């Protein structure tokens, strides 16, 4: 029994059937030798590769993951690899934010004729991974610097001047039958008002925190009939995304926009947009933040200044606290799937219970499913009972979408989605 055995890295390769798989096959038939460390998983197209599969590879013990497919323009299904490329550019940023070791994730285009390239890539990756050693840092705990604190105001709510007008207006809307229900803020939380006399329960103060557009997806609310919804300018952007995704008909909801002076949430400190844009009726006066957005600490920058090992430890500590209450999902206006992926049982892709792998998989799925759709309302972070910095993942993907593709969610109801669309000109520097 040898005392010092050489580390043999385990490499999982997700490859497309039409190009890379045939390329690997060609390597075999032309007797090109390459290390046996790679386990090939054949899929019809790189476009079919779910982002969570990459993570799954690491979860089951891979030390490196390779994803490979047809060159752009050569996809057997025409555009599958364009979708994949768009997805990989963004997902790689998310993995980096989470502290995954990007040196262990490789993307290549290898065609059916490029047996030699397959041999070369696999050989290189195997040797690189051998030098890196086993991936013991996955989900590892460890020291991590703390991020600058989030600024969250507390204290008694102060009623704002527009409250009586809001009540009067809502009462009339209901009395005249213009709407069947008003979703607004009440003394302790959201109120769903269906009778004109109950409009008295509506409030407007400087602690009206929830994003009420999240109620528009709920079947119990839909069953009540045409709604009016009270929105702050930050919530209003959710409506744009919902409309773009055909979840609401803008003509079938009555938007009551409230100009805002902040509600004491961390997002308020950097909010410069306090006037409703597209309301059917607006109330209130916008009051700018006392400190400019530029003065707020850039927490994402602080996170990315850590080493990836520290970042992984940071998130491991955060996700350890996740109890899988799914409040982040329930309060999000954009999480409206009738059956969430985490509730699907055939197959179980994400463990719905609280476990290390299950928590990472859930947070990754949640963040990535919201890429290009999250408007930064911050409800997820606010709702989380474990104080997990959920919004930071969404901010990271927002930055990625903006920097790589100039994308701004909630800007245009007719625009294309971030992930569902692609451009032939999408640029990247990491696909070999």
């Amino acid at each position: 029994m040898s005392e010092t055995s050489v580390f043999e890295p385990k490499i999982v390769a997700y490859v497309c059937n039409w190009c890379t798989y045939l390329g690997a096959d060609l390597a075999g038939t032309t007797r090109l030798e390459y290390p046996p460390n790679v386990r090939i998983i054949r899929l019809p197209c790189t476009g079919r590769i779910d982002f969570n599969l990459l993570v799954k590879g690491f979860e089951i013990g891979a030390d490196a993951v390779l994803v490979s497919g047809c060159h752009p323009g050569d996809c057997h299904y025409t555009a599958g690899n364009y979708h994949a490329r768009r997805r990989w550019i963004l997902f790689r940023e998310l993995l980096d934010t989470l502290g995954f070791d990007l040196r262990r994730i490789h993307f290549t285009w290898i065609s059916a004729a490029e047996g030699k390239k397959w041999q070369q890539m696999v050989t290189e990756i195997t040797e690189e991974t051998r030098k890196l050693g086993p991936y013991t840092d996955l989900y590892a705990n460890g020291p991590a610097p703390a991020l600058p604190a989030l600024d969250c105001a507390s204290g008694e709510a102060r009623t704002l001047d527009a409250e009586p007008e809001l009540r009067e207006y809502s009462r009339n809307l209901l009395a005249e039958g213009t709407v069947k229900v008003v979703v607004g803020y009440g003394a302790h939380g959201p109120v769903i008002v269906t009778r004109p006399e109950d409009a008295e329960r509506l409030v407007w103060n400087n602690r009206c925190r929830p994003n009420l557009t999240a109620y528009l997806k709920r079947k119990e609310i839909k069953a009540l009939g045409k709604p009016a919804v009270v929105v702050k300018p930050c919530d209003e952007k959710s409506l744009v995304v919902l409309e773009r995704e055909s979840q609401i008909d803008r003509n079938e909801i009555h938007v009551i926009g409230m100009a805002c002076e902040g509600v004491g949430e961390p997002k308020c400190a950097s909010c410069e947009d306090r006037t409703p844009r597209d309301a059917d009726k607006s109330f209130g006066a916008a009051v700018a933040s006392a400190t400019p957005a530029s003065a707020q600490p850039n927490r994402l920058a602080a996170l990315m200044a850590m080493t990836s090992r520290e970042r992984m430890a940071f998130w491991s500590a955060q996700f350890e606290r996740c109890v899988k209450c799914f409040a982040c999902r329930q309060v999000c206006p954009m999480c409206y799937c009738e059956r969430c992926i985490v509730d699907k049982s055939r197959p179980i892709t994400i463990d719905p219970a609280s476990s290390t792998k299950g928590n990472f998989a859930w947070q990754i799925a949640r963040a990535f499913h919201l890429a290009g759709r999250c408007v930064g309302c911050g409800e997820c972070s606010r709702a989380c009972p474990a104080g997990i910095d959920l919004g930071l993942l969404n901010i990271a993907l927002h930055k990625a979408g903006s920097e790589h593709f100039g994308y701004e969610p909630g800007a245009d109801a007719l625009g294309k989605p971030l992930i569902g669309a692609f451009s032939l000109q999408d640029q990247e520097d990491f696909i070999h």
Partner: protein
Amino acid sequence: MSEIISQAALRALAAEWISSARQVFGPTAINPHTVAYSPLNSADALLLEGFVHPANSIKEVVFPRHEVLYGYRIEGNSVELLDDHAPLPEQIVIAARPCDAAALPILDRVFNWDFADEFYNRRRAATTVITLACNTADESCFCTSVGLGPDSERGSDVLLFDLGDQFYEVRCLTEKGHALFRGKTETADRTAMAVSAPPKKFDPQVIRSFVIEHFEDAFWKDHALACVGCGICAYTCPTCHCFDIVDAGPSAGNARVRTWDSCQFPIFTAHASGHNPRASQSSRQRQRILHKFAIYPDKFGEILCTGCGNCTRNCPEGLGVLSLAMEIDRG
């Protein structure tokens, strides 16, 4: 005459317990805005003041959110079941709130109803609870409405009272408690002042009658509409104990696992046929109240609620037991 201990000595004790083979839990600052019961790696992380109630409860120590019941090894046509016989480390909770400690004897009832749940019982036996009586309450607290109070002794092995000047009165209530503090305290002529309790906010009997007699009332629909169906109330509650049993597949290790579940999730009661007896959020909200204030008391003589206020405090939409109960009691 009473036994007292300084905060420094208490922390030193905690450090001793941490460095021995025990698992120590207590309130700690997760971030500037969140205090939660967590495993403590150092006595400095223990938070003893500056908060009313942590964001979670201590039920995790007897009812983990993810617990392996048994493993299984499949080889061809044979299955081998693997019990986990590893001895449980001793567990000590420091500075539990009385409402969290009181949950344990309440939970004992269901976990020993007919069939004794050894997983729960083993952890319970291995746990000592040192409770820190409350000096203040916030608007979500309602322990006094369910028969408890800021200095309730239920479920506690030791009750500490903050004397205000970095000293605590130590009242050992059980042999387990004595075992931890024997010889570690000083005798003094100081006792804690009676603590002012939060006012009673509703009558649980009224809640029980209402949920039984007004099962189909429009109240449930009106007031539960704001509920978004997450699991925060159930998961941060000291007494909620609904669970699921799942087979954790190969990538997670082959084991049959018990995990927390919440009656507020839409598919909690969904049948394979597609029928769901509680298809609306209002019926699910009603179930929580029914379970806590009618079913459990009728079966076990205990209200399944200790008034900690976590559900209302943590609910992103301001619901929870207190909110609903006050609405019911108001008429």
